[in-house]
């Protein structure tokens, strides 16, 4: 009798433990200690940078657990960035498709006009915590450069921004903004003169001035711990969405939609929902002139695994393993790589990725400008235009959240030339 009771309770405990185990397995935990997301990530850097990234990793892991650090960060997000950003219901866009309810997460309302400042702010607090005096950053569209120059002005720190010569031309307004904010903007003339080369140059600067310089990387790329740290700082987007939607609708979203270059705004939205299998996640790459034209930035669609800028991920590359030039109308998506965490979400199938061309993105600009009175950044417009495809899959009782990553002011020259005339 007693033996039977013991046996029974034993098996009950075992059942309970099995259930616990299932729950533990479902928990999303990445990266590993070595900085890997599945087979992607790692730290592929010259020996000179190893002490710097180890120091950063240690400092960041401490800061993440430090309540005072987190409170300082949150209060600056509130007072300086203007968070939480609104979750705006888009009634006319919703009506236009007649399917799922569409909400826009308004990162365009952040100070400086895009989500980039969430990360720049977090990293400058790290730089201060680590006693670094000088800040460097790379920028493509100029949004990360502006965000970095902004927080450097806010904290009175020396700031050098590397920007491709071609990007400086097409994003002139942002160059002027950075200079006004007191940053030194250095034109990068090597290679394709875009984001990829600006990143090379920033890394060279870092290698040379590693003792006193903090490198604020703008996306979830680079060696570990950068992809993790940038994701954590950007995940405020998804956490707010979760809470805001709970209050408004009392449920989780059915679809999350975001554009992907390096992928920081997308991972910021996705990350807090990764454990909820029922939430479908869609990232939109820039196909440029078309994924098969050779003038594209659709890294997951057309790339293969490779190593660039300190991380192993997908990469647009030639038969010889040379990195190819990306093309997109949007400077912020014009990058031949992608964050290692997206590479992993892509290979495991947890998130799906599709492409939108330059021309389609311009349609997206018109669509949301005309229907909702919000002019999107060209990057954001890629996600907007994918609604044309995605909405067909949705039902009226479902909810979609689109990450409205940035506003379109910076792109008005390009947009004017292409569509307004």
């Amino acid at each position, binding site marked *: 009798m007693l033996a039977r009771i013991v046996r029974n309770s034993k098996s009950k405990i075992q059942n309970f433990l099995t259930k616990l185990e299932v729950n533990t397995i479902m928990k999303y935990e990445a990266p590993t200690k*070595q900085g890997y997301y599945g087979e992607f990530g*790692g*730290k*592929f*850097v*010259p*020996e*000179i940078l*190893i*002490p*710097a990234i180890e120091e950063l990793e240690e400092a960041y892991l401490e800061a993440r657990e430090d309540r005072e650090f987190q409170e300082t960060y949150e209060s600056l997000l509130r007072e300086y960035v203007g968070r939480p950003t609104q979750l705006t219901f888009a009634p006319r866009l919703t009506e236009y498709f007649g399917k799922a309810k569409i909400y826009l997460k308004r990162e365009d309302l952040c100070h400086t006009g895009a989500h980039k400042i969430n990360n720049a702010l977090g990293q400058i607090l790290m730089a201060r915590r680590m006693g670094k005096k000088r800040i460097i950053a790379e920028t493509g569209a100029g949004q990360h450069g502006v965000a970095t120059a902004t927080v450097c002005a806010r904290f009175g720190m020396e700031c050098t921004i590397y920007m491709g010569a071609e990007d400086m031309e097409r994003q002139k307004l942002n160059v002027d903004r950075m200079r006004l904010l007191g940053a030194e903007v250095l034109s990068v003339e*090597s*290679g394709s003169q875009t984001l*990829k*080369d600006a*990143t*090379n140059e920033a*890394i*060279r600067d870092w*290698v*040379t001035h*590693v*003792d006193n310089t903090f490198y604020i990387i703008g996306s979830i790329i680079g060696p570990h711990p950068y992809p993790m740290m940038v994701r954590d700082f950007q995940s405020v987007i998804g956490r707010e969405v979760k809470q805001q939607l709970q209050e408004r609708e009392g449920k989780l979203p059915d679809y999350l939609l975001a554009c992907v270059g390096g992928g920081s705004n997308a991972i910021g939205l996705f990350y807090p929902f990764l454990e909820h299998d029922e939430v479908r996640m869609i990232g939109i790459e820039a196909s440029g002139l078309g994924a098969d034209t050779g003038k594209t930035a659709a890294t997951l669609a057309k790339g*293969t*695994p*490779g*190593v*660039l*800028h*300190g991380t*192993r991920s997908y*990469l647009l*590359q030639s*038969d*010889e*393993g*040379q*990195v190819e030039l990306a093309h997109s109308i949007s400077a912020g998506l014009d990058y031949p790589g992608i964050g290692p965490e997206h590479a992993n979400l892509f290979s495991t199938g947890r998130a799906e990725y599709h492409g939108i061309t330059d021309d389609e993105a311009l349609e997206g600009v018109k669509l949301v400008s005309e229907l909702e009175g919000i002019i999107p950044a060209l990057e954001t417009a890629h996600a907007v235009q994918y609604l044309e495809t995605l909405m067909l899959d949705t039902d009226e009782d479902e909810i979609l959240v689109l990450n409205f990553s940035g506003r379109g002011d910076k792109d008005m020259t390009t947009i004017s030339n292409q569509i307004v005339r």
Partner: protein
Amino acid sequence: MIATTNRIYQIFKQQREKKNPEKLMNLFITAGYPDLDSTVDLVLGMEENGADMVEIGMPFSDPLADGPTIQFSSETAIDNGITLEKIFGMCRQIREKSGIPIVLMGYVNPVLHYGAEKFMKKASEAGVDGLILPDLPIEESYLIEEARKAYNIPQIYLVAPNTSDERMKTIDKKSEGFVYCVSVTGVTGAREGDEVARSVNRFIDRVNENITENPKMVGFGIKSHRDAKLIAEKVEGFIVGSALIDTIREHYPRDGWKEKVFEFVHELKYGN
């Protein structure tokens, strides 16, 4: 363990057996720079003029550990149509005429894309003696290790002035052939010799305390025989790259440019 027949192993062994050995001179050139036809001639001529080992650079589109000089030579070589197949071909041609140790140096992406196993097999067949991949630190070396060992291609690791004592010891255990000591923090390229010499002294002392299993060669910023003598005083040898490429760039393609380059090489090794 490195094979005792490996040519890198051999030259350090010969050096140890001499009474008053000279410092070994290791010269870097970019494969396919200034043109595809000159690489083999340059290596053979450099050997005649005092080079004990050559590093042949495998150009990469994004050489983020290199300064402007090697960025330029890499870009030119890619424009010239350099490929890994052609580089292996060059190594085979050198091997037909010379026993100089050949080390391939480059970034890891082209190696992985080519296929680590296929790369090591071809390298071994072409008579390559070692491999330097500055963006493949010990943490990530697992990616090519099995292939490397299968074909006996040693990997030479780097240490820098900011590398900890502990890490130097680990790198010493993993490195085969020699340990490449980067004398200053920064990208490859020319610097003022005296400045380098002063800052490098303490670093070299630390290198000698912690790296005991491998010979050491010091590089980054050496421009002249005088630089080399000062910097390599307490190690087995020195490496020159950017200054050599700059010399090629200065004289190419004028008549007699190779002779000018060989004169520079001779001076580097023996002084005026």
